[in-house]
């Protein structure tokens, strides 16, 4: 039985309307060779055992045994076993979009509590039910600012994750938006003065990262105030674990805060699934993409949860929806909620404090190696930059052979930082592991 619902007659009609005699003719006129499927090279079926052996062999090629000091937006944090056990319950695991509140109270309550947690973390007033990942969430924030202000120019710091900037550039390629990228300060700072100067009365928003990509923690209050004085919105991509300890973006006055939620109980993997979060000032909630769950009372006076403001979503507003990102990352958001609930307010702060103190220790150990020099002098959270006499990629490559993922070679995205490495330290790293990394690095320099 064919799974393609259109008939031969349907296809002929469509081809005729487009002015083609056949599908092959369409490909030919497009200047592309007709991609005829080759099915004869597909091998015969294998047994379950053979397939598992083959796939396990492939999985073993992943370097999962390395002691990990790589961050750059995605971090190797402890995930309590209880998190997966709770998230994998059938009631949560199979739940889809909770359009029917009478059948979905558990899922809706979990999303509502997730939103509450994100609001408390970021210091903002309204959170949505999640977005795909940190990069797409930042793109959505930028588009939201353009819609709110009616302006088409955005100012973005080069100290925003190059991965996120790449995603934004990709999404923007065919949009009528002018992006102005402000070079970082060449140490580890975001060059806040240059950013402030670049914001004019034509700017929709200024986009920064907190802590920035080089790990530096900056007070962004002055930039936020200056941008808002020009009628622009201030947008921030934040690392949620840092927010347990640091001044929140809400306290600094940001209009829109997004971020990558992977650090909240979601394992590192190649490309996800990860979690984008977004929280905004209440006055912008109707311009915020994605769904929102609200708390209400039913006819009997009992607390209940429902999708709210959904008249702005695509199943009702079609092409006029605030965004076409509507289905959310519910299961990943649930993981984040469970992780945050298991840690508790104090525990979550302790995670951040451990990250900070271990990072300080690691930086001391690495800077004690002859030839290793510090980059930047600002405050940092759990990530910092060092420079060595060797090419960063080469040094990191050699350390992989010694069992360490030593850091992120910055030359990959910042050519002028060829010899620099971005080192991240989480609560998982022990004193012994940090010392071992320093010894291994010293032996190579």
């Amino acid at each position, binding site marked *: 039985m064919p799974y393609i619902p259109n008939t031969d007659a349907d296809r002929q009609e469509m081809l005729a309307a487009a002015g083609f005699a056949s599908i092959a003719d369409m490909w030919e006129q497009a200047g592309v060779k007709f991609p005829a499927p080759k099915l004869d090279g597909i091998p015969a079926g294998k047994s379950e055992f053979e397939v598992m052996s083959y796939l396990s062999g492939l999985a073993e090629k992943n370097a999962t045994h390395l002691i990990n000091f790589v961050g750059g937006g995605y971090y190797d944090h402890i995930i309590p076993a209880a998190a997966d056990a709770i998230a994998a319950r059938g009631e949560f695991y199979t739940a889809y979009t909770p359009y029917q509140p009478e059948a979905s109270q558990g899922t809706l309550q979990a999303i509502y509590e997730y939103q509450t947690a994100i609001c408390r973390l970021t210091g903002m007033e309204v959170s949505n039910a999640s977005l795909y990942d940190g990069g797409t969430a930042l793109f959505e924030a930028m588009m939201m600012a353009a819609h709110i202000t009616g302006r088409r120019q955005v100012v973005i710091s080069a100290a925003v994750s190059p991965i996120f900037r790449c995603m934004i550039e990709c999404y923007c390629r065919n949009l009528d938006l002018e992006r102005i990228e402000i070079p970082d300060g060449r140490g580890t700072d975001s060059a806040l003065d240059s950013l402030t100067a670049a914001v004019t009365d034509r700017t929709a928003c200024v986009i920064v990262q907190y802590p920035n990509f080089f790990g530096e923690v900056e007070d962004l209050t002055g930039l936020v105030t200056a941008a808002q004085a020009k009628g622009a919105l201030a947008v921030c991509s934040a690392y949620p674990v840092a927010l347990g300890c640091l001044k929140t973006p809400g306290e600094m006055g940001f209009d829109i805060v997004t971020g990558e939620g992977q650090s909240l109980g979601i394992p590192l993997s190649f490309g996800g699934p990860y979690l984008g979060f977004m929280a905004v000032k209440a006055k912008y909630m109707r311009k915020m993409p994605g769904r929102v769950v609200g708390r209400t009372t039913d006819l009997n006076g009992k607390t209940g949860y429902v999708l709210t403001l959904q*008249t702005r979503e695509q199943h*009702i507003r079609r092409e006029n929806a605030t965004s076409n990102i509507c289905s959310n990352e519910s299961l990943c958001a649930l993981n984040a909620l469970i992780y945050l609930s298991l840690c508790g307010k104090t525990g979550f702060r302790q995670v951040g404090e451990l990250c900070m103190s271990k990072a300080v220790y690691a930086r001391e150990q690495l800077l004690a190696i002859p030839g290793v020099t510090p980059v930047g002098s600002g405050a940092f959270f759990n990530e910092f930059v060092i420079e060595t006499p060797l090419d960063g990629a080469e040094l990191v490559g050699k350390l992989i052979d010694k069992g360490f993922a030593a850091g992120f070679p910055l030359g990959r995205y910042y050519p002028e930082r060829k010899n620099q490495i971005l080192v991240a330290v989480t609560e998982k790293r022990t004193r012994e592991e940090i010392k071992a990394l320093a010894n291994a690095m010293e032996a190579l320099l």
Partner: protein
Amino acid sequence: MAKYYAESHEWIELDGDTAALGISQYAADALGDITYVEIPAPGKTVAAGDILCTVESVKAVSDVYAPVAGTVGEGNSGLEADPGALNVDPENTWICKLEGVKQDSLDGLMDADAYAKFIETL
């Protein structure tokens, strides 16, 4: 002051070259309970037929179209706290003012009698 209606159910009331703009009783009834009125930003220039703002009810979010060209002036900020006023007395509750409205731009619009006949056909 003369009042004119558009087929998209907005009304304007012209005073000199400034028009007060609202939605008709028919539109308010069709929307149901109105929960939010977006007040358009002053200074925005619109052409006839452009989307001016949105009105949100428990059922839907609907666009409000500019019946004539003009520049957005003062908004009715009272609607931010009390959007339900649009249900209570829509014909006398303006959403915003449009400035620089030209007399000859009224040609395509209906007077109250013509609009009453128009909605009977719907």
